[in-house]
């Protein structure tokens, strides 16, 4: 099981969270008519063995979306920030 350090609540068990998928996926603009970009957005993923930026929703906690950087081979969590902020960059939205 994974221990996720929620930026608001501290270290919490993974079972408090719902997984939200790859955080690097960018939704195309609503008026973007290029099917390739929509295909990429909907279907294709890097699916890396190694570091992965992903979204988790703290459903049984602060109910915030957090962006977690986790190693998919070891499950080690490198850090978590409020979703929308790049991990480690520390900018405010």
């Amino acid at each position: 099981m994974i221990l996720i350090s929620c930026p608001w609540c501290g270290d919490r068990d993974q079972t408090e969270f719902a997984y939200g998928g790859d955080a690097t996926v960018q939704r195309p603009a609503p008026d973007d008519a290029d099917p390739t970009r929509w295909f990429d957005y909907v279907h294709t993923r890097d699916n890396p063995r190694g570091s992965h930026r992903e979204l988790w929703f703290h459903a049984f906690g602060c109910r915030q979306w957090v962006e977690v950087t986790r190693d998919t081979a070891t499950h080690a969590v490198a850090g978590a920030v409020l979703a929308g902020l790049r991990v480690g960059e520390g900018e405010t939205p």
Partner: protein
Amino acid sequence: MRFSFLSLLRNAFSAHRDWPEQWRSPEPKPAYDVVIVGGGGHGLAAAYFLAAEFGIRNVAVVERGWIGGGNSGRNTTIVRSNYLLEDSEALYDHSLKIWENLSQTLNYNVMFSPRGILMLAHGHHDVQSFTRHLHANRLAGIDSEWLSPEEARAFCPGLNISKDIRYPIGGATLQRRGGVARHDAVVWGFARAASALGVDILQNCEVTGIRRGPDGAVTGLDTTRGAIATRKIGVSAAGHTSVVLEMAGLGRLPLESTPLQALVSEPLKPLISCVVMSNTIHAYISQSDKGDLVIGAGTDQYVSYSQTGGLQITAHTLDAICELFPHLRRVRMMRNWGGIVDNTVDRSPILGPTPVPGLFVNCGWGTGGFKATPGAGHLLAATIARGEAHPIAAPFGLDRFARGRLIDEAAAAAVAH
């Protein structure tokens, strides 16, 4: 060497110490006509059919660890073909038909046991959708019959059909041709038969790179046991497909790898005579010939290559098992483990050519690949031999996602399959 009653008898007198190696362990040759990446059941089956049916015998199977050490050795060995959609029905029944004579074909006992697949419907909506499923199967010529709760319990004694449980059983479908097989024997049987036809099985041989020529076509691969030249590569690497295909420049695929767990109990006397599956409360269970209960759990949601999953996933499955079979509550679990499965969004596989000339792929089987072992191997071999998708595999191409032609077994099969 063929197995026969006489050879078994002769070796019985020498306490089975004198059996020869069942497949060769050669050094890699500098070049092959076809290289299959991944020495699981699927990859070895593809190599076998290339040699046996398509006359391509200068073939290597490269395997990072030992053959059958990945998902082939980590699944719950369920074989069935009662899928909802026509394309899937053709695909899985193609496989099931090969299963039925596989032991004879390979001269190796894969212990295929068509003991019946009982799929439980819980509540009114399940009964409706299962009825639709059943008629879809009937129209496709796939055997499937409806059992009332009482009939289901008669077929599988001990099943709790009480109205008082959280999700009462409203009936079940039964595919009598479905069942289980011995996972290791399938791998070893294909390896032995392929090796006898000249296929080189290269274990401890990890692919580190895929070489492409100026025209983009594959020219060979780099491995931990040296470079191998080849014009055709078939990738059958299950959960690691994304990692292998990235070496050929196909970085982003419609795949995500997740852990899938299973567990076995202590050995018990014969207790469960068929395979019982419940998609709704997520449990599947059968009993191995050794007597242990083989239980399949679900996938974790997150991307992982670690072959371990969360304990809450197995606990959830055991909750369901204990509700269906209350007399199993005090049975102890002996081992649990995880495998890495590559999931597509529609829970149907990807089988066919790729945009890279000479590179073919068989992946995306998600949680249901074991049943397809001989069929997928056969179709991958046919696709490699012809250079284009076999008609049964054609709907399962990598391009179906961009075209929007999904084969949505995700909705049909829920999770377990």
